[in-house]
């Protein structure tokens, strides 16, 4: 795929991609027909419920297994005393999406909410009560759950093997040359993904064959994980994940409770279903770790950034490592001659953090955009003008040119739609009735990774096609957008495409994460279609009976289910070509990945503008308008892309104003692990929102020019809201979420 790295690899798609089709799974989802893992009800189903640790550190000294087993309906209780063994050490990392497999290995408790038992019963009610009746007793140690309590340690990497620090340019020289030095400190809290669908699994064994329904964002990797810890061959596993009720990163990993369910189903010889309760989503299934970030911007007299430093302190668990790589968000957004970023780790008695929508970027962008606003204020400049002054024409961290960057167009489009012009420079200048009104903005940026994917595209004798890849649709619209791409790869109408996806017996579509799924799986599907078309062309052009005979590959175009000669108006349908060749099926195969070291910096970009109203006496905030414009390469389906962007922006509202998980510092237990205490935005929080896209051709990012839209909406938005709050109140938020009482 090296040829994809150079200009000219850009493929012109047919007419399916680019259309705002409604979701192909839409009717299923509005009628209750879409099946999620917890909806499975195989014959003989047992229900499992985990018991969660009520301390953050120590040992379980007693579990009243007898009381639980005596409860009518309870079948079996699994604890550390009778735990079923794993085939591998729980700490084994067979690939980057493996977290410690907590499956009752010992009586040790490392975080509140850790599964300490699994109760299996004939009914959900009995299993739930059985788990409660275990009434655990503990030998508890003092909990260390805050950034201040946690133990510092040194590490070279943050997450997925990324280095924990970066330095380019001469910081000391740049600082010495600077006219002013501005330090900004921002704190972000623990946040939890909270997909509406809790982690769930239904596991059933048929002899040595395992069948599981569980939502997963990386179906191929999940199968590998499960096989490895079971010590069986991956081919013995069928994992179905056709619909995820949200993932946001939390479902990229197979966690202990899911694995325990698989073990219990094998042990009991019956299907077992386990669904986490909402409170159990806090601890064992990842979160966005808190950060304390310090940024220093050193400016010259005109306001150019000469040096940019971004330090992050964050927590991970005592037994695994995933660091919120917030400082990395400063690598590539603004021009600077010198750049230094660092991450400092702490170990706390918490569940291991994990990737949560825009991991690193969301927290880091929030702090960076506040720092930029502080600098603009210090220079007496309009925040947008200040960002334009420091527009990065190349990636300052690598020196690479951008593969494409229509950020200026985004700024212009969003600013105009918002009506940014004429914004007073000073805060507290605008009112709506009694309410203070403020405007703020931020730059959105998100990288464009690609994973590895494979796909099949099979043309059938009737002119229809089956496309196959184990994509994961957690709401981003894979069922629709990928089918659109595949249809164009095959040169047929999307209505003729049957899409098989969301199961592990299909070619691996890679990870639905990093906003790279459409690009990765899409390119694989397109290549599979192109491979099928190539074979079709071979058949036709080598067949004297075909009107295409002798046209050769370059002389033929596939569209509308027909091959057309480029040199005249003759064409032939796929049906006819296959019929004459006596073929029922013609299968193409395709792969996609990004090989080698990129020669360009690849990012999606955007500008987000926020208006907030703030009650001057009570400090309550409402984001009255939120407008973003984004450049994200080729948009496969504008309707679904808009939804993704809006969703990300609303996550920005939640980050800025609502979301914060609190532990009691003494016990380490959560005090708000439910939706009444951990607030996420509701409909009334979003009175006016718009996301626009800016056309962008990217000939470098991949052959189809697809970037990603799933996460970028969170970036930029958090800072834009915080900056609007400053503009309304004159108070510069230093921590998230912004509490009303901090503004009065």
């Amino acid at each position, binding site marked *: 795929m090296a040829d994809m790295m150079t200009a000219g690899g850009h493929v012109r798609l047919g007419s399916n991609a680019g259309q705002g089709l409604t979701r192909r799974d839409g009717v299923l989802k509005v009628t209750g027909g879409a099946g999620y893992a917890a909806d499975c009800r195989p014959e003989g189903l047992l229900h499992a419920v985990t018991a969660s640790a*009520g301390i953050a550190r120590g040992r379980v000294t007693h579990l009243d297994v007898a009381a639980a087993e005596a409860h*009518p309906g309870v079948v079996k209780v699994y604890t550390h005393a009778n735990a079923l063994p794993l085939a591998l050490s729980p700490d084994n990392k067979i690939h980057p999406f493996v977290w410690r497999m907590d499956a009752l290995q010992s009586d040790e408790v490392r975080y509140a909410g850790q599964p300490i038992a699994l109760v299996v019963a004939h009914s959900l*009610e009995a299993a*739930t*009560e059985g788990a*409660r009746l275990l009434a655990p007793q503990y030998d508890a140690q003092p909990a260390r759950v805050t950034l201040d309590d946690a133990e510092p340690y040194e590490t070279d990497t943050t997450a997925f093997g990324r280095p924990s620090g970066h330095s380019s340019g001469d910081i000391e020289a740049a600082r010495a040359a600077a006219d002013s030095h501005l330090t900004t400190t921002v704190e972000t809290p623990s946040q939890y993904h909270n997909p509406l669908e809790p982690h769930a699994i239904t596991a059933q064994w048929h002899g040595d064959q395992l069948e599981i329904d569980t939502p997963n964002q990386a179906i191929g990797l999940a199968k590998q994980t499960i096989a490895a810890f079971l010590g069986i061959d991956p081919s013995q596993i069928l994992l179905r994940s056709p619909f995820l009720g949200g993932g946001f990163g939390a479902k990229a990993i197979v966690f202990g409770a899911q694995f325990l369910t698989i073990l219990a189903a094998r042990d009991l010889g019956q299907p077992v279903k386990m669904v986490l309760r909402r*409170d159990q989503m806090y601890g064992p299934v990842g979160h966005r770790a808190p950060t304390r970030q310090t940024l220093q911007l050193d400016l010259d007299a005109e306001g150019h950034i000469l040096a940019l430093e971004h330090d992050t302190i964050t927590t991970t668990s005592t037994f695994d490592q995933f660091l919120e790589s917030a400082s990395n968000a400063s690598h590539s957004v603004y021009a600077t001659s010198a750049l230094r970023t660092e991450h400092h780790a702490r170990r706390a008695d918490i569940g291991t953090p994990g990737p949560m929508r825009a991991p690193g970027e969301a927290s880091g962008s929030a702090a960076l955009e506040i720092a930029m606003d502080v600098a603009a204020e210090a220079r007496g400049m309009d925040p947008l003008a200040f960002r334009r002054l420091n527009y990065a024409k190349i990636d300052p961290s690598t020196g690479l040119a951008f593969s494409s960057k229509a950020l200026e167009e985004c700024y212009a489009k969003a600013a105009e739609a918002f009506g940014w012009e004429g914004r007073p420079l000073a805060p507290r200048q605008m*009112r709506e*009735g*009694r*309410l203070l009104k403020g405007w703020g903005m931020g730059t959105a940026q998100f990288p464009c990774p690609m994973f590895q994917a494979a796909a099949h595209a099979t043309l059938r004798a009737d002119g229809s096609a089956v496309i196959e890849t184990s994509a994961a649709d957690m709401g981003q619209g894979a069922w629709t957008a990928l089918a659109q791409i595949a249809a164009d790869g095959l040169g047929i109408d999307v209505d003729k495409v049957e899409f098989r996806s969301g199961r592990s017996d299909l070619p691996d579509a890679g990870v639905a994460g990093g906003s790279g799924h459409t690009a990765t799986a899409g390119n694989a599907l397109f290549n599979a279609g192109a491979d099928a078309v190539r074979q079709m062309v071979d058949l036709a052009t080598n067949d004297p009976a075909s009107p295409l005979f002798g046209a050769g590959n370059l002389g033929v175009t596939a569209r509308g289910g027909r091959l057309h000669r480029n040199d005249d108006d003759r064409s032939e349908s796929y049906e006819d070509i296959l019929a004459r060749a006596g073929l029922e099926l013609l299968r193409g195969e395709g792969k996609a990945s990004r090989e080698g070291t990129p020669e360009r910096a690849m990012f999606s970009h955007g500008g987000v503008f926020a208006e907030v*109203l703030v*009650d001057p*006496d*009570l*400090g*309550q905030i*409402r984001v009255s308008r939120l407008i973003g414009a984004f450049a994200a390469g080729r948009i496969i389906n504008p309707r679904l892309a808009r939804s993704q962007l809006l969703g990300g922006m609303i996550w920005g509202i939640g980050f800025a*104003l*609502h979301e914060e998980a*609190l532990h*009691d*510092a*003494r*016990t380490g*237990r959560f*005090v*708000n692990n439910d939706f*009444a*205490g951990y*607030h996420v*935005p*509701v*409909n*009334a*929080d979003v009175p006016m929102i718009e996301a626009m896209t800016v056309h962008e051709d990217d000939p470098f990012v991949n052959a189809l020019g697809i970037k990603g839209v799933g996460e970028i909406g969170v970036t930029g938005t958090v800072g834009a809201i915080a900056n609007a709050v400053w503009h309304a109140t004159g108070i510069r938020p230093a921590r998230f*979420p912004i*509490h*009303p*009482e901090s503004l*009065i």
Partner: protein
Amino acid sequence: MNRFEYERAGTLAEAIGAEGAFLAGGTNLLDLMKIGVQAPARLVDISRLPLTEIEPVEGGLRIGAMVRNSTLARDPQVLAKYPALAEALLSGASAQLRNAASTGGNVMQATRCSYYQDPLSPCNRRNPGSGCGALGGETRNHAVLGWTEGCIATHPSDMCVALAAYDAVVEISGPEGARSVAMAEFHPLPDAQGAGDAPLAAGEIITHIRLPDPGAMARHARYVKLRERTSFAFAIVSAAAALAVEDGRITQARLALGGVAARPWRCRTAEAALLGQPATIETFTRAAELALEGASPSGANEAKIRLARKIAIRALERAAAGTPERLPALPASLFAGDDNG
């Protein structure tokens, strides 16, 4: 949830004196049972008791305990004469919960103190003598009035704040007969040990809420609620206010605060100070000072005292401005669009 016996009471007589926990709308009791805070051996389902009338009575209105919150909020008599009650109801919970929750159940709902809701934490309210887990913990939502070291929880109801302001009376029937208690005094404040007298004796049941006629205050009454989320959130602080103003002077005044104490906090000293005064921001500010007299933080919640003062002022201002013909789209919200400069 534990296994329990289930029985439905068909008549009030069957319910009175019944042993077990009364189940009405279930929105609070079932929740508490699910999280292991309550484990009644027996549930007495009172949801079908014929206590569903909202009837005018001499000197006011009488509301059956089984009237659903949503029914009460859209009742024309309530909207006309007790709009702050409707506004409070509509600012609470969600439409779904209001359709299920009963009037009596709303009065009886438990605190949302996260330590009360965590069976592993000490709590004098849940487990007398065990201590207060909240004290020294995460206390942003806790009391600033009427608390003791035994308990710093607040009462979460919006409805009860408005009822307290309206001088509502809780009608109770029990094995020993019927009795009435003022809404503002119904919920016990904690004593030094964190407990207080139980609002209801064993076998007692709330049958009705009686509201006296608000007279000239009917169209000068509002409920205002501060929360982080625009909707579907408990109050950080809230206030219900009702005023009658004649010739520029306040002739009647009611003020109650929510989210500050273990009961809806009726501010009688402040009310007295309002009487005879002009309906101005200065008057309201002085009253709000009095309303929070004696307030003290029970933890890291000092800001709540300032917020409570401000919300009292806002409620009084809105009440003075008059209740709008139709309740705003965002009931009780600071973004309801009716505060002019």
